[in-house]
């Protein structure tokens, strides 16, 4: 990786609980992820993958250590700046999709563009473009409950990309999908990283998606194993 990292952690510890009931979720973790690459955080349940994702995204503060996002220490961002950063520069893909039931597919995708007040017409064109690219353009007016699991995750990926995110955080994006559907989703993320020179960080326990990643970082009990 030659360009400066989009996201990085340096000697990060994350400890939950008080004295006597302390759980170390992250133990001296240092990672980097740059533009154009898909980094896979691989590990079993409870290994600290999701905690690392939330720390990288600025949703959670590390107990000690530094987190750098877009070249700036996360601790130096005000809460409102972090909110704007998430709305404008970070896309999220969740294990269970988390689409808003009351909104149509198109409105779900457009939701984040409202958060950073993007021009409506351009945002709509971009959203429809993504839905077309992911083969779900015919579902723009449909509601999430009418979609298959695979369709839901495609819509969720479109939502993550619609703000032209420089960083996409994907937490177990294939866990709720059948194998082929899961691979398709990872291929989409892979293509996004390569074609648009964006940074994608995926947390998963699925070894099979390692072949789509540029780097695999293995976690075990909060520690970076390899």
């Amino acid at each position, binding site marked *: 990786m030659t360009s400066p990292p989009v996201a990085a952690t340096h000697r990060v510890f994350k400890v939950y609980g008080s004295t006597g009931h302390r759980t170390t979720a992250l133990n001296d973790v240092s990672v980097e992820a740059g533009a154009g690459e898909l980094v896979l955080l691989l590990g079993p349940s409870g290994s600290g993958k999701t905690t690392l994702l939330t720390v990288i995204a600025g949703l959670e503060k590390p107990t000690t250590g530094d987190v750098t996002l877009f070249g700036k220490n996360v601790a130096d961002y005000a809460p409102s700046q972090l909110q704007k950063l998430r709305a404008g520069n970070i896309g999220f893909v969740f294990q269970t999709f988390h689409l*808003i039931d009351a909104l149509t597919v198109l409105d779900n995708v457009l939701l984040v563009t409202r958060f950073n007040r993007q021009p409506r017409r351009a945002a709509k064109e971009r959203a429809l473009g993504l839905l077309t690219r992911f083969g779900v353009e015919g579902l723009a007016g449909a509601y999430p409950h009418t979609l298959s699991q695979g369709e839901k995750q495609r819509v969720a990926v479109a939502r993550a990309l619609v703000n032209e995110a420089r960083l996409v955080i994907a937490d177990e994006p294939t866990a709720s999908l059948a194998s082929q559907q899961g691979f398709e989703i990872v291929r989409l993320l892979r293509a996004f990283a390569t074609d648009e020179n964006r940074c994608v960080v995926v947390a998963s326990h699925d070894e099979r998606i390692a072949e789509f990643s540029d780097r695999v970082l293995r976690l075990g009990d909060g520690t970076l194993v390899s």
Partner: protein
Amino acid sequence: MYALKILTAQPQRAVLTCLGIALCVVLMLFLLAVYRGVSVGSLEYVRSSDADLWVLQRHAANILRSTSLLSERHGEVIRNVKGVESASPVLFLLGGVERGKPGAQKLVTTYFTGFDTAAGRGGPPALASGRNLESDSEIVLDRSFAAKYGFKLGDKLSVKGEALLVVGLSSGTNMFVIQYAFITLNRARRLYGMKDVVSAYQVRLKPGAEPAAVRTSIRRALRDVAVYDRDTFLSNNGQEMRSGILPLLYTVAIIGAAVLTAILSLILSVNVLERRKELAVMKALGAPAGFIPGLVIVQAFCLAGAGTVLGTGAFFPLSRLVERFSPEITTRAAPVHVAIVIAGAVAVSLLSSLLPIQRLRRIYPLEVFR
């Protein structure tokens, strides 16, 4: 847009909430309209009088809830005061009208107003039907009193065993808890054995006479009377009426507003709780600080707005229906009442948003990763 879509995702709940709000709006409008109806019914008699001065017994300040006993002699003295054109006697008495078949009669209470038909002052402020009194054997009833107890024009009713013919039905004479009934002064005195007794004199002044000067002259001539100009007397009666009914009105209106706030707050809180995950997703995706509370406030305004429109629309036919079944209830709605209720709905919307917005603060974006 999102707020509306979230609301309409649960159409039954939204409709039921609107109906609940509409009922509260109807209740509040109804109370305000009843208040105005009572106000008109209680004050119209004094307001419509062309008397320049009212003379009552000393320490009596109104005709609604005070006793005033004067005599014919007072009238003679007043008439001799410089500047007085006429002094018309009126006698107010609480009494019963007998209704029902002979042998099974019941008394219904009314506010008998005996007036001098020759002087022509002190009678009903307006007639809804029929005519005014022409003889001692006649009576004019308040129209809502007549409707409630089934009296019609031409009926003969009994007061203390004496028959009176209903010749007219008056309006503006319903005080809600009691209604006026007009009889001649002679008949009123005879019925209750109060020879020469008068409750008040309605005084007309000669053209050019100064009310303040005449007032002073009357008080100088009669030490045991109170003299009021028209505006003061109207104000006294208004104050008496308000002190009697306003606390009740306020209490019920406040309960109505509290129920309205509770309904809205509960529904919005349930919406927040049900959509907890979705709201956490919005926070994680970078929703600005005011976005989600804004959703709650917009929802509150939409529900309250729809409920207010529905309630206002339903109020007018409903109030007519109530008046039909309970004629003693007279409602008088005014645009200002609708404005008050709309302002109240806005306040309730904001107030009811507080609790759900407070709940929003305990929703964390990290919840979507669990």
